[in-house]
């Protein structure tokens, strides 16, 4: 490998990071939606573009997405499946003029996540391969256990005021039953979308976009539209004033959750991070925000790292599958190139997200929240229409209605993730429910 080639590779990482950062600012747009178009471009220009450089550019895009999507999640309240958990604390931070602080905490966790991936994944190549071999035949019950935990671990949120036991049960179970209803409806939506979506065949690779945007983004935007709140002038503090223990605790928890999610099919960063926050007995918003940043990055980036890991080559996530269409990882050298790309993209993305947040923090309070939310809603609807046609809008509307249930009843929004978890789990367990819903 020549120095020129290496410099070209670094250049492609930087290009990918810059493109990814710009695209990730758009609320509702997932990097996986765009990568499909880049792959189409590559297949036509493949003769002149080196495959490794293309891989590094895509990795740059993914890493920057994992970092920069924090911005629309916090400032525009348009989360995806993995940032929905930070919505409550970050909206609170935003209302208190501390939106930038929330972004810095999440970005800090994300940067530590990148460091963890680039250092620890190569160190634990052997054990990871062994663990995967052992886990593989047992995945059906492990994902089943994740689902069971999600369902049995939600406790009532009724604050203990009730006239009699029956009234108490009714009040307490309201949130739990709303959660179960959300889970059930999301699962049915997922089974339909996975088995026979109504989206036109030429856009079928965008099949999950509409349900995910409906469940997480549009439902949050609608909630913001109906609730009255002001965005005050945001403070740009010199320090995030977090105790090192909170940073370490959050990072370790988040990285573990992210790795768990990257390792298992169907489990996404949100679920991984939320399970890790329970496993590590997390307390406090700061530690939680750090953990969510770490979890998200380790999930997205870790998945690609595991794909290139010489002892494993585990194909997780749309990017690994997309890359696998034109590239088969073979050597240790390629793995270290990818590791380098992840590290460079991580550092650039960290500064991108901080500067973007500073830029927005000093301006966002001037915009009327209603106008902001309506604009974001318009962008999201336009994106869904552009990517998935009117059929996608239909699916998005159904998903939005489902996504509003936990928001209105104060139950866990994580139940919406049944849209991915249940169909994949059924598939892994050899259970076919498609015929129940007229899908054959």
């Amino acid at each position, binding site marked *: 490998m020549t120095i020129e080639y290496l410099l070209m590779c670094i250049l492609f990482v930087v290009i990918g990071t810059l493109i990814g950062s710009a695209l990730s600012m758009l609320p509702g747009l997932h990097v996986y939606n765009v990568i499909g178009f880049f792959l189409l471009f590559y297949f036509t220009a493949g003769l002149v573009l080196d495959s490794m450089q293309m891989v590094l550019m895509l990795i740059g895009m993914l890493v920057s997405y994992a970092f920069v999507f924090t911005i629309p999640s916090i400032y525009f309240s348009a989360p995806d499946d993995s940032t929905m958990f930070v919505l409550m604390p970050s909206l*609170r931070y935003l209302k208190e003029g501390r939106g930038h602080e929330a972004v810095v905490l999440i970005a800090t966790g994300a940067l530590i996540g990148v460091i963890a991936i680039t250092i620890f994944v190569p160190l634990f190549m052997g054990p990871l391969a062994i663990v995967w071999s052992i886990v593989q035949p*047992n995945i059906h019950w492990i994902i*089943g256990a994740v689902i*069971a935990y999600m369902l049995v671990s939600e406790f*009532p949120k009724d604050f203990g005021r009730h006239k009699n036991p029956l009234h108490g049960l009714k009040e307490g179970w309201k949130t739990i039953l709303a959660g179960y209803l959300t889970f059930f409806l999301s699962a049915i939506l997922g089974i339909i979308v996975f088995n026979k979506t109504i989206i036109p065949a030429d856009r079928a690779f965008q099949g999950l976009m509409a349900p995910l945007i409906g469940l997480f983004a549009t439902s949050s935007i609608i909630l913001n539209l109906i609730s009255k709140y002001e965005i005050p002038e945001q403070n740009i503090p010199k320090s995030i004033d977090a105790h090192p223990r909170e940073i370490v605790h959050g990072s370790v928890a988040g990285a573990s959750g992210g790795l768990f999610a990257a390792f298992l099919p169907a489990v996404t960063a949100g679920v991984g991070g939320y399970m890790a926050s*329970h496993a590590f007995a997390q307390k406090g918003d700061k530690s939680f925000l750090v953990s969510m940043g770490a979890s998200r990055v380790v999930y997205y980036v870790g998945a690609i790292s595991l794909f290139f890991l010489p002892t494993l080559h585990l194909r997780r996530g749309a990017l690994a599958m997309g890359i696998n269409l034109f590239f088969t990882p073979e050597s240790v050298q390629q793995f270290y190139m990818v590791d380098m790309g992840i590290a460079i993209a991580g550092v650039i993305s960290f500064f991108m997200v901080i500067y973007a947040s500073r830029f927005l923090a000093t301006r966002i309070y001037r915009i009327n929240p209603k106008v902001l939310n309506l604009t974001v809603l318009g962008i999201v609807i336009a994106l869904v229409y552009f990517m998935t046609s009117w059929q996608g809008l239909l699916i998005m509307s159904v998903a939005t209605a489902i996504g509003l249930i936990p928001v209105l009843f104060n139950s866990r929004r994580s139940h919406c993730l049944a849209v991915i978890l249940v169909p994949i789990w059924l598939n892994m*367990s050899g259970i076919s429910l498609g015929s129940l819903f007229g899908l054959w």
Partner: protein
Amino acid sequence: MKGFAHFLAGLTTATFVVVIANMYYGNNLIANAIVQNKALIIILGGIFGILPDTIDFRFARYIQRHDYEVDMDEWNIDPKLVAETLAKAIDQAASEKREVNVMLHTIKISSDQWRQYSVQFDTENKKVICDIGPVISGFEKRPYINSYLPESKSHAEASFSADLKYDYDKVTYVDILSGPDFSFFPEEDGSVRADFIPWHRRWAHSITLGVMFAPLGFAIYGFTPLGWTAFWIIMLGFWSHILTDHFGLMGSNMFPPFTTKRVPGFKVTRSMSTLANVYTNYINVLLIIFNMNAWSPVKYFEMPWTQMLNISYSNYAEWYTVSLLNYIIYYVLPPVLISYAIVLWIRRKMGVKEMTDEQARSAEQLEELGGASV
């Protein structure tokens, strides 16, 4: 322990039951049902592992009756009401020789703002002291500096005459989510014993209930080898919850209806301690991986002691026991011991004070509730 630790402990227990059932039935019968026929029997361990808390927090807390409820709002704050109600309940328990329960509700201001207040039992001077604190922000519990009330409006005391046995930390803060309930029990010597959240860790955290749930295994799988395995998974998974909780201070009421009081825990740790939860989960994950490898037809790792002692796989029970011992000593214990030593060193260097027994007991009970702290 946190729900997740209980769930994982239940799953771990289930994997051990599967290993033993395999030994009993032979031909890797149960493991094949899981790996090849995709049976989900192990999940039962997790579900029944978390069930005691599910019963308490989803049902038992609503059955609990309170003799008094103190429910203030931001515009009607009265520390005297809190102090006098608690003092009255203590004396009532002594005079009427019955359990008296008091519920202290939190003061919610908005979706993430609460007014904090504290209660203190001064057993020497026989006084209950209530202090109204600041408005705090959500889970961070950050006080709003200008929200403190003047002392004339924020402090009150009330006297009681009974002898009070109070083994918890002096000050209890009532702040977010759901408030704590206090129970006052008359003791045989005429004194009154105070306790927190009386509905928790009683009948639902018992050996008895585990035995009663176990036959559900037959309801799911019939009287088959899988049915018997499910029987043991449910019972032992349920008991794993009680065992892990017992490493804390509060303990559980083991054999209701034959016993009525909680048996105190082993006092090894506090059930909500981060370290305790992390170590429990770490050990559980490693044991699950070991057991999955043990029942897999292909062994992805072999422990060196079995080769050193020349124990072959055909002698499965011996092979498994030696391998497990070797695995624990090589992989499970060293990271726990080393990291714990580092944590202790850091804590000493930073001058972190250990909690007293009373503080730890209060913390354990109230942290589980989430609505109060010490």
